[in-house]
């Protein structure tokens, strides 16, 4: 080691050594950078959401309807009449969590909840939270249509996604006598992390903040 450093100091004056030393510093810098980049992968940086690559396919089953289960792909209807599948949310690499909520035109609790969901969409949407309301019946208990879902979205001034669930697919996930359902899904695995009927903002917020940092 002594020889090494004495050689270093002796050769420091030559141009060739300086060029080599410069290359070495670059190499060291690159080598230093590599682990820093790799160790940062574990953190969910909100700034990186938009840069995330798209995902392909959809997580394999077995699928289930309770917490801990993988949620099967489901197809709903957009207010413009086009089809919308959960697969689309999965494909978007920027999405980290889905907050899926049911609503109906007769559901006063859903009316109370609407501004809170909008608030979360505004505060966490760009960081990877996809808020989706599945509207399943109008105020007269008629199955939802694209139009009635759109009216719900307009009436409550919602800029997050609202879709019609005319066949009430979401009824398979909870006691459908009690509305609304609120469900948080981890997009990477499409695992149902948490479900509740009614509003439990504190728990939902805690999960969202823990998962989207």
């Amino acid at each position, binding site marked *: 080691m002594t020889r090494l450093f004495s*050689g270093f100091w002796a050769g420091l004056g030559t141009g060739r050594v300086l060029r080599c030393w410069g290359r070495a510093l670059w190499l060291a810098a690159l080598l230093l950078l590599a682990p820093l980049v790799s160790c940062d992968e574990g953190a969910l940086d909100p700034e990186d959401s938009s840069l995330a690559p798209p995902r392909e396919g959809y997580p394999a089953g077995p699928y289930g309807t309770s917490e801990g289960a993988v949620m099967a792909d489901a197809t709903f209807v957009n207010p413009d009449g086009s089809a919308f599948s959960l697969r689309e949310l999965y494909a978007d690499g920027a999405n980290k969590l889905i907050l899926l909520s049911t609503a109906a035109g007769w559901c006063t609790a859903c009316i109370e909840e609407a501004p809170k969901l909008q608030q979360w969409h505004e505060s966490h949407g760009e960081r990877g939270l996809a808020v989706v309301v599945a509207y399943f019946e109008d105020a007269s208990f008629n199955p939802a249509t694209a139009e009635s879902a759109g009216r719900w979205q307009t009436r409550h001034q919602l800029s997050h996604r609202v879709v019609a669930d005319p066949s009430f697919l979401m009824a398979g996930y909870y006691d459908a006598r*009690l509305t609304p359902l609120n469900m948080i899904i981890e997009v990477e695995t499409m695992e149902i992390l948490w479900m509740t009927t009614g509003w439990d903002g504190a728990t939902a917020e805690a999960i969202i903040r823990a998962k989207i940092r």
Partner: protein
Amino acid sequence: MGGGRSWRWSTWVGVGLLTWGLVACDDASKDAPGGDAEVTPPVDVPEAEVVEVADLVEETGELPPDAADLSETTELSEVADAADADAAEAVDVPPDPPCAAGGHFVEAIYGQVVDGAGQPVAGARAQPCLRREDGTLLCLRPEPTGADGAVAITYEGFCITELTLRVLLPNSSMSTAYCTVPLPSSGRQVQLAAPVVLHATEAPLSLPPLGDGAQARQVDFAGGFSLSLVPDQLDSDVAAYEDLAARRLDVAAAQLCTLPAGAPLAAIAFYPEADLLAPAQVTLRLNNPWGLAPAEQVSLHVLGGLHCTDAAGEVLHEGRWVPLGPATVAADGAAILYEGHLPCLTWLAITE
């Protein structure tokens, strides 16, 4: 040779820096949430799901229920389970006495829906919304009534502080009824004290064509009253301006679930039930069968209902009467006039 020697030096330096970097990275990972080497998550739980409750509280500003009972680190599912613990307890434990003061454990609601003639209404929906002890609302999706008009709603009960019923016959022009239901002091079931009455409404005597929906127009109804309104302000899931209908009833005939404050004189039921988008200024003109003196004032009230919002955008509580202001007997004594804001078309009541 000198260059090769320098290259070896640089390699040593690079390796040294790399080693330092790896150590630093490892230290950083120990500081990161979920990265503490002391924490060994269960084998089947991804490390990313391990969070500290303290972090949740710090970031949300709220303490998940029972968080104090959790260990320093826990899984998300445990946080959620802990938060649900109270509710689960309320469901699993017998109702006496799981409810806080003012709370009532209710697991069933029974009653009947009839029409104005007292005949059972089949296909009606008696839809309850329940206010839980934590202040959140949950709405039940009832099955339609059978031929006997019977209401029988059972569910996994919980503690509630408030029960409101919205009763309607879907896809008909019968009025929608709202009832704030008294909660039982004992027992787990609510039995409505009287049948809920749905009244048929009547098409207007004159309904101006829609034309320019932004223009106010006067609609005359049977029963001696008229209402001027702007069709574009009518916001309803159920029907449109062309379907507008109403019915004026004396209070005894109306058989309202809940009466407004003051001595009621009359009530008016509207169809469709609709929010009136602000600023909804209306003129209501009623005849004066009671012989009230000119300039005498009565009070006008509106019944809070679905999507019913006031001028400030505040939601009117379903099933509660809200005073709108005075209506004044005209100088000739023939009519009673109200000019002002009307939040929604549900029911109106006139009281002395």
